[in-house]
């Protein structure tokens, strides 16, 4: 398993997908709910804060370039506390896998096929997720390389075709809600796209062949993902208006519906759906990968493949029970999940960094085992 290596460009693509994953689907509406027409400023602020978080992650990871996050936990906190922290981390990854399954399934039932049972869509999605994980990280990375082209092409089509409908009046008055509100609303963006990026430490830097460049691609990838989110928020607010953006569950999809160029290119949202589908798929895969690999390393197993199928079934069941409906989901994701993410994805790594600072000398003396 240690022989698997992906190159920095592939990692960059994975980071982009992880950052935009849920971001471009629901973040614009969450931002617009509180920051109103200044949602796009909140997006920029959010990206700025995110970069700091990513910088923290890369710094922690590069202290131990041959260990995954789970192994770092054990090394820094000691065996038992480390394992406890790791278990929390795995619970988070599994929870978000199911959460994303729910996202993608409700996205489909809301917009295309209202009568399809959720469980069928969950099984279909987890099927290709498990398939991807079983084929290995290299295969996932290569697929991401191909599908990023589709993603960017579709995004450009969306942005170009909707741009004639931009109304700058929708953005005015600028900076009405004030600094405090903007920071407050950007927290959701930070938590969903960058704090959760802690799961990427299961790949970075162990499975990447050029560690120096990998750090750069982590940061740049995150920035590019942030730009996508910013663009979509900007388009959402300027085309739909702040209120409409906040009201929609999927403002981006609403944008796609409104595309109408020369009364000919219109109603292409069915195709545009692939945009969100691809991004959601890779984000789900990365969460699931972290959860599967996490359990494998906590239990010191040799191969993660036997775990994929049972854990996949678990994720389907969990996806069926975590949210009773979309409204519930929206409340949970903007309150409880933020604390959940920040505790595991930001607080614990900070504690780890502090503990590391105290025990630094000890690590310096003993060379890296693995």
């Amino acid at each position, binding site marked *: 398993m240690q022989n698997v290596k992906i*190159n920095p*460009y*592939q990692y960059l693509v994975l980071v982009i997908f992880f950052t935009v994953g849920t971001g471009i689907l629901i973040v614009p509406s969450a931002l617009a709910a509180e920051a109103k027409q200044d949602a796009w400023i909140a997006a920029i602020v959010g990206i700025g804060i995110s970069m700091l978080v990513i910088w923290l992650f890369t710094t922690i990871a590069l202290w131990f370039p041959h260990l995954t996050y789970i192994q770092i936990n054990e090394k820094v906190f000691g065996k038992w506390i480390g394992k406890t922290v790791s278990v929390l981390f795995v619970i988070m990854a599994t929870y978000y896998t199911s959460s994303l399954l729910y996202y993608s399934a409700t996205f*489909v039932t809301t917009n*295309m*096929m209202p009568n*399809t049972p959720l469980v*069928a*869509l969950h099984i*279909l*999605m987890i*099927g*290709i997720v498990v*398939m*991807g994980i079983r*084929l*290995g990280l290299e*295969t*996932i*990375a*290569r*697929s991401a*390389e*191909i*599908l990023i082209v589709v993603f960017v092409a579709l995004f450009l089509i969306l942005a170009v075709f909707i741009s004639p409908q931009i109304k700058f009046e929708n953005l005015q008055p600028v900076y009405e809600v004030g600094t405090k509100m903007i920071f407050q609303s950007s927290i959701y963006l930070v938590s969903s796209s960058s704090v959760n990026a802690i799961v990427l430490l299961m790949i970075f830097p162990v499975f990447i062949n050029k560690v120096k460049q990998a750090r750069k691609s982590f940061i740049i990838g995150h920035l590019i993902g942030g730009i996508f989110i910013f663009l979509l928020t900007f388009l959402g607010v300027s085309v739909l208006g702040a209120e409409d953006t906040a009201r929609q569950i999927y403002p981006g999809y609403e944008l796609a519906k409104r595309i109408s160029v020369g009364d000919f290119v219109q*109603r*292409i949202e*069915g*195709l545009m*759906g*692939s945009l969100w*589908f*691809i991004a959601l*798929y890779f984000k789900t895969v990365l969460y699931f990968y972290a959860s599967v690999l996490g359990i494998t390393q906590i239990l010191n197993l040799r191969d993660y493949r036997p775990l994929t199928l049972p854990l996949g079934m678990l994720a389907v069941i969990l996806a069926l029970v975590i949210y009773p409906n979309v409204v519930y989901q929206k409340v949970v994701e903007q309150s409880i999940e933020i604390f959940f993410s920040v505790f595991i994805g930001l607080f614990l790594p900070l504690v780890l960094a502090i503990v590391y600072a105290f025990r630094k000398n000890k690590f310096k003396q003993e060379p890296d085992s693995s």
Partner: protein
Amino acid sequence: MGFLKRRNHSKVQSTSPSQTKETSSTNDLKTSLQDNIQNVKDSLGESSDIVIREIRIGKGGSVKAGIFYTDGLTDTPALQNFIMESLMLDIQGTELEEKLTAEQDVLTSLKDFAMTVGDINDVTNFDDLFTSLLSGDTILLVDGYSEGLVIGNRHWIERGVTEPMSQTVVRGPREGFSENLRVNTALVRRKLKDPSLWMESKIIGTRTKTNVAIMYINGVVNDKIVDEVRLRLDRIDIDGILESGNIEGFIEDSSYSPFPTIYNTERPDTVAAALLEGRIAILVDGTPFVLIVPALFVQFFQSPEDYYVHTGIGSLIRALRFIAFIIALLAPAFFIAITTFNQSMLPPALLISLTAQREGVPFPAFIEAVIMEITFEILREAGIRMPRTIGSAMSIVGAYVIGTAAVEAGIISAAMVIIVSITAISSFVSPTYNLAIAVRILRFGFMALAASFGLYGIAVGLVALTLHLCSLRSFGIPYMTPLAPFNVADQKDTLIVAPIWKMFTRPRLVNQKDQVRQQDPASAKPQPPQK
């Protein structure tokens, strides 16, 4: 007869030291000619095409000799002119005749002075004797010697070098491989007069003893891949290899993937181009189809003609092939998804006309599509197997009658006939047959997904397909190279075809050393004379 014969020769020689010790192994040739003839007759069941001729040569006919050959595989005029005549007539009354007595080394004298043919080898055991005999060589045994001579004069009736049936081009060489391995290697040699073009031979198949040759350009090819090819070929242990498809089945990376990981071609220019790129050709005796490894996904979209025509049209046709690939794969699935789930995507006018057409049709779109696809597959298969004279006419008439009649009878909607036809035509655009097969298989899967999950199902299927393609490897090279892992330099021959003077590097990964094809790319660009 080239490298192949030399290999055989050396093999015989290398085993000879142990043979000279007069071991009592039944495999060794006997000293007595009569015993040997009896053994040959017994082993071959006195087959009627084996000719055994006993002659007497030397002064006063003191030396008994036997000539063995397989009728139909041997060049009989040559045998008579250069072997029988020289042995029985020409040497009469010459100095050589004096030498040919029982006391002298008759075999060496014969070989050195009497045999007026080019290719002569020694044989010491029955296994080699039978292999040579049944391959068409003539065997000369002399009484009193436990070894014999193998005279290479194979000749049989064969198809000449004709235009290939598959992979036809408008512009480009018209010659295609034939069934004879030696002719095929010669066709490649004629294109590449490079001393580094190396050829290794193997005999595979315990009963068919099929000659298989591996060709590559030493110094350009990736040695690891050559080793891998050798290893996989050596692993084959079967009684018969009848076509290169049999070899392909044994050495390909994943048998259950619908996608081919080995390229096959009938065209010498394609093989030469592949060799120049650092690939390896596997030629099999008895088939015009030559295998090329490693084979990548984009290779199946490349036609040799792309490089012989203008870069603009080459690129457009390349793009067209990718589009046709997608249409052939997805058109029916897309139609099912849109008419069943995502009607909103259609403009109202089109939607109304489609709905009106489908009004009288009793089946769901999926069933309709499956009926038409299966009908088409039947027609196509019948068209290939039918006698050629009626084949094409029958399939056209069949398709027309069934299509039109089915629509008028209200079983199938007219739109579905259009969709199935466009799918069928698109699947023939692919320059390689075996990629079209993959599309044919996968199309039904996509139709089922579209019928149950609409566009979402298709998207899921496409992601699964991408994952599968990315997981494949051909002899260690990721199948989707240079798309993933992405490689800028190799894009010149992927989705577009760059001008020939711009293709100055070989594909990366396939070839690791000697990357550069032309030394100075800047000067390669055609330009008007400078004053």
